[in-house]
């Protein structure tokens, strides 16, 4: 069961000033970001033209993780803090634990798509506080562990308690985008804006406590991954105890339509100076460019967000070409994107 190191929740709950929430919101930004490379690696491993539902579901979740990262950064800015996105510390080492001890030692790596990865990693990451069990065993006793949702709730509670109605941050630093609906990504000027925004993160990730849907009537991440795991759509079902069951249309999965990525590929595994090594450097150069662009975006130049969207396409195209490339010296494997932090000017 996915846990967050309870120290972080305690830190939130014992905060006496908004400044004490800054590092926690920075952690939140890092956490939201840290899920994206594993999800994207799985998505990029799907051969173009195959497994469209798998691609579509992961893509929809990645987009929301980006939204959550943006919201967390907006809240940090609204409270007067400064998001840091362009530093080596920002990028997790894969395989490894996610920030804040998420999952009580859950090790997350960069791997090709498989139902095992969906079940054992992705669903673990997105595990709600009280996962609703649909048409299977009866609800067991509710465990009392803390989740990412509880962490956000703790921050939300403290903002409510400590913050003035008008938040102190520089309003011109708030980031919005035409790529997200205005009722999901909105500028955070007031305490109420911050509370509403945190609800969006929690519900998109976990659903509400009684429904797998969030406020936009979309399935929460956990249940979208569960659809992939079960190979069936989760649909309304009046005959089911919770009103939903995995009785919808099947989601076909073709394991042949997945590139056999070498798990947790690193640049150092590739022959120095080879074409593959160059392409990996190109990928990580784009990754750095993206982080750097986001850093600028969240530190006073919100208009830069559009440019970072372009960098995401550079990153995606390079990653997909890597995934289609055989791994030199590792027969049967292809190259996965490594998501390593490099400063391109460095040598």
């Amino acid at each position, binding site marked *: 069961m996915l846990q967050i190191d309870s120290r972080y929740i305690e830190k939130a709950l014992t905060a006496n000033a908004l400044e004490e929430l800054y590092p926690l919101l920075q952690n939140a930004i890092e956490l939201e970001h840290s899920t994206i490379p594993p999800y994207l690696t799985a998505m990029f491993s799907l051969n*173009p*033209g195959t497994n469209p539902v798998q691609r579509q579901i992961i893509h929809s979740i990645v987009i929301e993780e980006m939204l959550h990262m943006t919201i967390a950064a907006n809240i940090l800015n609204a409270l007067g803090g400064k998001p840091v996105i362009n530093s080596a510390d920002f990028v997790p080492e894969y395989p490894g634990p996610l920030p804040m001890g998420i999952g009580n030692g859950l090790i997350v790596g960069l791997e090709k798509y498989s139902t095992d990865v969906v079940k054992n990693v992705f669903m673990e990451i997105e595990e709600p506080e009280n996962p609703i069990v649909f048409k299977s065993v009866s609800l067991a006793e509710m465990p009392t562990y803390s989740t990412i949702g509880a962490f956000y709730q703790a921050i939300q509670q403290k903002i409510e308690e400590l913050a003035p109605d008008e938040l102190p941050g520089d309003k011109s630093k708030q980031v919005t985008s*035409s*790529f997200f609906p205005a009722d999901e990504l909105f500028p955070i000027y007031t305490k109420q804006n911050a509370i509403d925004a945190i609800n969006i993160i929690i519900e998109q990730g976990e659903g509400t406590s009684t429904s797998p849907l969030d406020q936009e009537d979309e399935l929460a991440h956990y249940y979208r991954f569960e659809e992939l795991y079960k190979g069936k759509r989760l649909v309304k079902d009046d005959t089911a105890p919770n009103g939903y069951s995995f009785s919808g249309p099947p989601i076909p999965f073709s394991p042949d339509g997945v590139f056999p990525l070498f798990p947790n590929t690193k640049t150092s595994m590739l*022959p120095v*100076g*080879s*074409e593959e*090594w*160059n392409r990996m*450097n*190109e990928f990580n*150069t*784009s990754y*750095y*460019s*993206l982080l*750097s*662009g*986001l*850093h*600028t*975006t969240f530190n006073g130049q919100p208009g*830069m967000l*559009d*440019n*970072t*969207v*372009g*960098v995401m*396409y*550079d990153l*995606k*195209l390079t990653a*997909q*070409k890597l995934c289609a490339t055989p791994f030199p010296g590792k027969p049967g494997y292809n190259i996965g994107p490594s998501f390593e932090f490099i*400063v*391109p*000017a*460095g*040598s």
Partner: protein
Amino acid sequence: MSYLHAPRLVFTGDFLSDVSTVNNDTAHYNNATFQPNFQDPGQGATNGWWNPEGGAVFDFQNCAVKQIFLPDGTTQSSPADDIIIGQAVVGAEGRPTGKMVDLDPDAQMFSALWCVQLRICTANGDLLFKGDITTTSFRDLQMRQLDGGKSNGQPLGASWTSVITNVEWGALAEQSAFLKTLRTTTQNNTLAINMNPFGYYYSHNDGRFSLGRIIGSIGPYFENEPFTFAAARRLYGINYTPSARGTFFSISNFLVEPDAKRVSVDFGASFPVADSIGTVNYKQDLRLAVSKIPQAGVASRQTPTFYINPNDFIEIGALDYQSDPNWLNQTGGIVSFNNLPDTTVSALAANQLILVSPSTSQPGQFAIIAREAIDGLVARADNFIQRLDDGQSVNIDFYAYQWGKLLPNASISVTLDPPTPDTPVGPQNPISEIYGNNFPAEGLTFNGQISTNPQGKAQMQLTGNAIYSPRVYIDGQIYFITYQTPTVDQAFGTEQVVVHLRDYFEEIANPVWGDISEMMIQYSNLYPIMSKYVVNLADPEALAEKKKILIFAFSRDMNDTMHMPVTRDLSSTKRNTILNWLHNPQIAPKPVVRSEAREAKAANPVAPGTALTDKQASYKEAVKAKNGSFPGFAATNDLFENL
């Protein structure tokens, strides 16, 4: 000419050019005859050449500042001398990379950089300065590699000259004496840049696929100077090398600064190299000199070498390059001679610079490897690559110089090249009929007789008029417009203004899929990277699903790196029609039959098989070379040894 002025810096490294190649074949534009295998890598018209999945990315890789040249004539190359030496030259950060694209499949020799940002940073990423390189196209293509390009496949090199605008100076710039001087010397907070790419890899050899070597120099910009070429004097190669089917040292810029008693010659675009990475391993005795007598030799197979008696020149000095195989990469190939004697300086004021080598066949004589333009005359168009919609006008800027000084009252005649014939399907052209260029003549309006003003500059207004699909399945037409002064120096030949005039097209306010499907299917055919990885451009439902991001890209300014189409070959009326469709995607066909093109295509005035001009024929050969279907250049083993 500023990139040769002091202070200047030289950088060397690699460039990545992930150009797409399905569009290198004109016949691939015909949707009716397109086959899926045209998207597979491979030579020949029925394949997609070396990089069908290219995405047009251009970026700097492994580039670093090698040395700097100061106003007092000294060169520094140690990081201890100035903080900028050794620092990295990199591309954009936080925004997509620059792009490299051709004007058109019928105009492939003018590959242009778009939206390239250049930054000079420390290893930690701390900024010295950055700026945006204004769009610029290949000029001065010339033979570089003595090995014939055997490992990489492309032995030619070229030059990109431009300016860097929007210059931002990092906090660290204060710690560089060089940058402080550059900043106070340059004008308009703009810098001059010249880059010489060569050694590009079509092949998957040496880990360098889609990489090439690039040598750049950055110096001050001066107002009122051209942007895409240096306001320089020029040396032209006049020694015919059979294996290269032409000359080495074909084109070099140089600057004479009488006050500083200095001549600086840029061999960065012309110095023959042993291999794709710029190694110099031949050791000829090469000397710069001023010819006391006019030189008008032109290299030919019949007269491969011209000689000069040492009494007829004033020697400036020998090129000191032999001791270091890395000389070109380290120096950028720019050679400066300082403290010239007054006689040399005054001789240079109205006499030709020459590059000579002692003759072995005629002892006591010197072979002329390169000579300055006849009478020191240089006349060039600046904005020589144009994309025009009908009804649009643009002023083409011309500059004339003699002995490096702006030349008033120089007459320049500008002529549309003769039409090239259509090529019917046949054994040499298996896929589709290919239509000719340069017609209809009435597509362009311009006054072909111009003369430079007292400042040595002339402008010619060029207007695009409505044309109706003269190339049937490719939008618009390519026009080559040759310009020349009354005497043409055949060692260099003439240059051209090249225009892509888009077809007349009336914007459709409420289009259905059928109104844009041919355009979108063509892009889908030509750029498989899009359909494979981003969105199937031929599928209206997929487009509708991704309409948000597509509207974003199709509505970006042409000078935004995210602009779609990346080739920048769409008229604004067609682009707006696509946007109109994306805003309201109507997938079902219109209930009424849509009206077909209202005008028949303009007929080609010349019959198939009509002979090409020499220039047109050599362009055709050059395109073959570019696409790797040329029989190949032989290696040159004994350059200048037996002259």
